């Protein structure tokens, strides 16, 4: 199984504060990794370093075959990132937004409809401004916007936040589908039950370092 993320003693600093302090971790293709850890443990920072949004200060990091010291921009187009923010244009209609994201990632505009259906957003909501949606519906639009780009590496920070039970189940299905089709999924969540449902591996961070690793399933 090929390695998608390989960190060796990675140190990263953001805003003058060391957010990763010598992190060692390897993640293989097709894994679904549940990142755990208390607030400030480095979960979000790990994902932002993987996405190339935070540069590494020391150590070696390789993501999707790209050396992150030399080139942290190239892997981005193969990565889907869903952070605490939803990355939505609230004035746009739902369909317009997802079509824009599709075009921005080089996907077909026609894929937007399929992505919206997959996250359970009915047709009647497609021509509604995003600002009128509930928090859970916005999260679904954000997931559809990510889904439409067919990323190889999914990085999701508290992806189940604001979703109802049906939405959570749907998201879990989507994550399993993505992994079984060859993508790799890393998600951060404080909810322990999620490890039992979808994760193939549970990793705990503390102080920007690896504390526990259940290992690949």
């Amino acid at each position: 199984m090929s390695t998608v993320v390989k960190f060796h003693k990675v140190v990263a600093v953001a805003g003058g504060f060391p957010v990763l302090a010598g992190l060692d971790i390897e993640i293989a293709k097709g894994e679904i990794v549940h990142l755990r850890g208390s607030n400030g443990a480095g979960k979000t920072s790990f994902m932002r370093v993987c996405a190339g949004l935070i540069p590494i200060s020391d150590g070696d990091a390789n993501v999707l075959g790209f050396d992150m010291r030399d080139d942290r921009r190239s892997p981005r187009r193969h990565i889907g990132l869903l952070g605490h923010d939803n990355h939505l244009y609230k004035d746009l209609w739902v369909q317009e937004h997802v079509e824009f994201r599709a075009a921005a990632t080089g996907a077909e505009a026609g894929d937007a409809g399929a992505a919206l259906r997959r996250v359970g957003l009915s047709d009647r909501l497609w021509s509604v401004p995003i600002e009128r949606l509930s928090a859970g519906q916005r999260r679904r639009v954000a997931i559809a916007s990510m889904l439409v780009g067919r990323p190889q590496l999914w990085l999701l920070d508290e992806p189940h936040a604001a979703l109802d039970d049906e939405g959570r189940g749907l998201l879990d299905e989507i994550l399993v589908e993505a992994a079984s089709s060859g993508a790799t999924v890393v998600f951060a969540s404080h909810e322990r039950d999620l490890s039992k449902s979808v994760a193939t591996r549970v990793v705990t961070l503390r102080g920007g370092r690896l504390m526990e690793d259940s290992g690949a399933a």
Partner: protein
Amino acid sequence: MLREALLIARKDLRVEWRSKVTLGHVAPLALLILVVFAFAFDANARLLELGAGGLYWVAVLFGGTLLIQRAFDVETEDGNFDAFRMSAIGAPSLFLGKSLGVFFQVVLLELVLVPGVVLLYNVRIENWVLLLAAAVGGTLAFSVCGVLWGAMAAGLRVRATLLPLLLVPVLAPVLLAGSRAFDTALGVRAEAGWTWTSLMFVIAAVHTAIGLGTFGFLLEEG
């Protein structure tokens, strides 16, 4: 690059079309500025006539700064800059697209302001071609400078107050050139209108080159 730039511009104009900020908020404010000046110089109609070009560009500066602020607010408010960094769209395309979006919004603003100046300040347009060329050159320069400096301020919490502070000195030559060219086009002063207009196109070209070269860095470090 052009396809990506048009994608960004179309998205920005669609956001504007849905929110109606330019026509609903900014244009009335800019018109109010013209009205305030009309009241302020009411006692001296000749002075108002002489200053019409300058007052027009002051109104464009105020309104346009709000539009630039807005153009970056929609990107920062829900982490959309991160989405851009993660997308296949290159920084130069983003710069061109944002500039194009701002350009069309400022043009819309100017379509409201030109009749306002003619009616309120009692001036006549003597040279339509020069007026049009100066408006296009000044708006281009305003848009590319605004987007370049808007990106610099975008990541900062104090951006709302910092942007005008950065923008006004940078745009001072555009304001001056635009005012002089308009003075000639309105027939209130015999100036080298076309020279001033050319200067605005040169400023636009220089800032476009700087923007294409540095926008990636600004996006990463912002």
